[in-house]
């Protein structure tokens, strides 16, 4: 008896989730005013001038953001776990601060405060993205590292004669690779979809450009929305159901 109620809730929820998606998919497959359906709209965005350049810009911003994220967060979190337990609370507080500040507010502050050199370059976005993602990337790395006895592994490696560089590259990084990848994934996802900062700081990135282009072609824009959603789902499903296999530890040598 009980289960009927909960199953009903789930069915209704399912409808609410998938209906807009269905509507959007149907809409996106309309061939203009004709009554037929097709996948033409899905080609539209690729055919717009500005597609490649804007995509490239966003790609470059993403790469820089990922790079910054890595070199700042990974060593810091690693150090915290190995040697800096005392400072964990402090860092936790610091990295959660960006969560409190609305992105719109951050944008106004960035426009005001950041040095000229940076403000003249679209790459200022990379830096800001790292800040905005920080609460999530820190958490991902922290949780990931907590799962491994890093100190023990490091001591063992040092005991066996490894230099610090070796320890870092051949013990620590491979062990925490899943968490690093998770943090990267977060960074990439954010960067590819980020609109607010880019728009307010007057840069044309891929999301901003798409939004503007969408005014001209609703069907095409809807196709893009649907396409990106499905794409994200496929990625995430893959990650969830097949990502677990990646936990091969560094035990080839033993």
């Amino acid at each position, binding site marked *: 008896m009980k289960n009927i109620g909960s199953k009903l809730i789930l069915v209704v929820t399912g409808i609410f989730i998938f209906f807009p998606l269905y509507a959007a998919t149907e809409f996106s497959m309309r061939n203009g005013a004709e009554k037929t359906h097709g996948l033409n709209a899905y080609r539209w965005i690729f055919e717009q001038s500005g597609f490649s350049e804007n995509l490239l810009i966003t790609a470059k911003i993403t790469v820089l953001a990922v790079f910054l994220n890595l070199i*700042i967060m990974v060593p810091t979190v690693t150090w915290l776990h190995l040697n800096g337990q005392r400072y964990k609370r402090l860092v936790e507080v610091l990295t959660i601060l960006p969560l409190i500040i609305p992105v719109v507010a951050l944008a106004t502050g960035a426009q005001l405060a950041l040095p000229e050199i940076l403000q003249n370059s679209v790459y200022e976005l990379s830096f800001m993205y790292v800040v905005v993602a920080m609460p999530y990337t820190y958490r991902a790395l922290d949780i990931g590292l907590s799962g491994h006895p890093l100190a023990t592994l490091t001591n063992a490696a040092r005991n066996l004669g490894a230099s610090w560089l070796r320890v870092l590259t051949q013990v620590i990084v491979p062990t925490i690779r899943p968490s690093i990848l998770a943090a990267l994934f977060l960074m990439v996802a954010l960067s590819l979809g980020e609109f607010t900062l880019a728009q307010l700081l007057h840069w044309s990135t891929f999301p901003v450009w798409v939004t503007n282009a969408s005014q001209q072609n609703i069907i095409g824009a809807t196709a893009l929305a649907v396409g990106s959603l499905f794409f994200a789902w496929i990625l995430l499903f893959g990650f969830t159901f097949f990502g677990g296999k990646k936990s091969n530890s560094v035990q080839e040598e033993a």
Partner: protein
Amino acid sequence: MKQATNPNVDVKGASSKGGAFHGFIRNFPTPLIPLFIFLSIFFLWPIGALTGNAFKSNEGAFTLSNINLLFQDPYRLAFKNSITLGFISALVGAIPGLLIAIAIEKQGSQTFKKFVASISGVLANTGGVPLAFMFLAAFGPAGLVISALKSIGLDLYGLGFTLFSFTGLVIVYAYFQIPIMVIVITPALSALRSEWKDSAASLGASKLQYWIRVGIPLLLPSFVACFLLLFASAFSAFATARALTVGNIALVPLQIGSLIDGNVTVNQFNLGYALAFGMIVVSLFAMVPYIWIQSRTAKWQHK
């Protein structure tokens, strides 16, 4: 004090800026310096600057006049709208989200739960313009639902409904607010040990009494925390609001956006900063308790 003399393990941020032997600056650990510098430049400084400017007159003197303006229309209205939007959207996300999470928890299948977890993850991050377009296709003037209802005689737009409104935003926001609630409350739900339910029953508590005395008190912190998070999300959201309602209703993020784009009287260029400052204050009221609650419940939820 610390660091180089620690007998256990000694690692510094290997590839970060700064050499290995910078020494201490008032006992601040060297490995944390890169992070600290980064946050200072790209976070603390912008926030500090905008706060400072919020209280500056056009001539640069300290003034409360910008802040005072916030309490007058149209800005007062914008704050009222944004806060109300935050609150209502949070409710619309929190309650159904809780019920759905409970329904999910009752299903036994692990694959189903994994499936739900991935979907929730994607949906929770669906926002901005793509989301707006999706809803346009369903609930816009030419949308599927609207047309279908029209064909059976129900003209929603004729009756005054429109997606480009406060209500429309609440509906659209629900699409990611509900999954966020599901994601946040599910760990709290699964932390409800069956032993507690069984103990309560053996001690004489009916199902209702169990929920009132045990279940709800244990879920409350996460629920409240999530509510606060949903509030802050809806309050601060920009892209979707801009896509659907810009020009229609006064919302703080949109007003800031328009000020930044230059649509403002030249006399008040610090107004934008005052607005931003106001946003931060409201957000603080929601996010600080959120963070506090989350840090406390983490203790017994992960046992």
